[in-house]
């Protein structure tokens, strides 16, 4: 609810004609210096490194006073081995390497903005990626709300989130109505603790 109310205020800060603006449009506006803040995630670092001719930084969510700061993390991803595989040894070797510090270093540095799943401390050469990673020290980790289980029913939470967020920013739906719609949709098929 508070998030949606915050989102409703963003409309005022968006450029003229933002209702017909698409993701690549926004990327271009930012790299051309016509947008001051670009709201996205660390996955866009590589795009901006190659296109923007100015230095840019990153900042995390700004929590209200006295509240904890959370970043949405991929807490829902894991790697495993199929127990029926014929190549158990090879798979174990590969997986142990994927979990090693060496892999974490190669992965995080060659794909700035993407971080390895392991807990190894990695020295990142990209300053913006380093800023993102440092958020892990300041903020708590949370799930991606509409992923996994919450996107399995009808109506689909992710689809409804996309639609409701757009309407809130456009001002065609109040944050209260949007929050109610999302909660009602979820309540119709999902009971927590099932």
């Amino acid at each position, binding site marked *: 609810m508070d998030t949606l109310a915050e989102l409703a205020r963003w409309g005022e800060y968006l450029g003229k004609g933002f209702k017909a603006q698409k993701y690549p449009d926004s990327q*271009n506006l930012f790299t051309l210096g016509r947008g001051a803040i670009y709201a996205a995630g660390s996955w866009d670092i590589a795009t901006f490194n190659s296109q923007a001719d100015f230095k840019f930084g990153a900042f995390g969510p700004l929590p209200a006073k006295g509240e904890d700061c959370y970043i949405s993390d991929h807490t829902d991803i894991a790697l495993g081995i199929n127990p029926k595989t014929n190549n158990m040894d090879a798979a174990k070797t590969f997986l142990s390497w994927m979990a090693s510090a060496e892999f974490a270093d190669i992965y995080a540095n060659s794909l700035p903005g993407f971080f390895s799943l392991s807990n190894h401390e990695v020295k990142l050469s990209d300053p913006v990626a380093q800023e993102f990673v440092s958020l892990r020290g300041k903020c708590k980790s949370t799930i991606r709300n509409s992923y996994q289980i919450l996107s399995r029913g009808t109506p689909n939470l992710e689809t409804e989130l996309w639609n409701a967020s757009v309407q809130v920013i456009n001002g065609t739906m109040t944050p209260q109505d949007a929050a109610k719609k999302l909660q009602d949709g979820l309540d119709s098929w999902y009971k927590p603790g099932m």
Partner: protein
Amino acid sequence: MTRNQSHIWIFLAPAVLIYSIFMIYPLLDSIRLSFYDQSETGDLSFAGLVNYVALFGDPNWSEPFWNALINNFKFFAMHMLVQNPIGLLLAAILSLPKLSGRGSYRTLIFMPTMLSVVIIGFIWQLILSPLWGVAEGLMWNVGLGDYYNAWLGEEGSALITLSLISVWQFVGIPMMLIYAALLNVPEDLTEAALIDGAGHWSIFWRIKFPLILPTIAMVSILTFVANFNAFDLIYAVKGTLAGPNFSTDIMGSFFYRTFFGFQLQLGSPTMGATVATMMFLVILIGVMGYLLLIQRRLTRYSL
């Protein structure tokens, strides 16, 4: 006699075989699929009318369905009111006896029809874009700048804008069909009318128009079928979500979202098949209505 019959089968066989394998069988199979339900592990089980009950009874399905159907009728209405009259007008102008550069006009107007929808969608998005588009500047130049809006982004105008883009692309088809029909009108008739003192206007409406009416009816039914199968332009410009707030969602895009899913929404082959069956029924009813009510009453003149 038996020899004659075997001839019939030999000549029919290629069309019947290909049509059965690639059209009739998939169609029947998707209708069959719509009576099944899929479990979380992907097993299909016969479920009777469950999907249809959900599609019409559950607001999660029925609201987007009726929204898509109504939008589709608006989409069709725009084509009937704009595309076909303009096609008729262009064909009438092209068939004027003293027109130079006829071939160039014909090719130029038909050109967009041959372009890929993806290109059409992309070009028009750029033209109309409030950020980089030329539309706003052009409108300021002629003093209409205040009327400019991000049409593709507004709930009220996005569907109309998309319909007009589609009209712009496909206006060549009614034009060519009607033009061909107009060329078939024998010159004796128009000459006789000219001698009797009729002007071009009354020659067109009194003589040519009744003769090309069957073609216009055919153009209408082709438009109907094409519009209710339309999907590509919406997908190219607006993506799977057919925004804003599903205002550009038509049957094709609704089907795509249901069948293949969106982002994290899992696709449902059985529900998708149900939507596809409804699309088939809508088109079937439309075409049957046309065949029974309109085509029978059309007067054809043998010349």
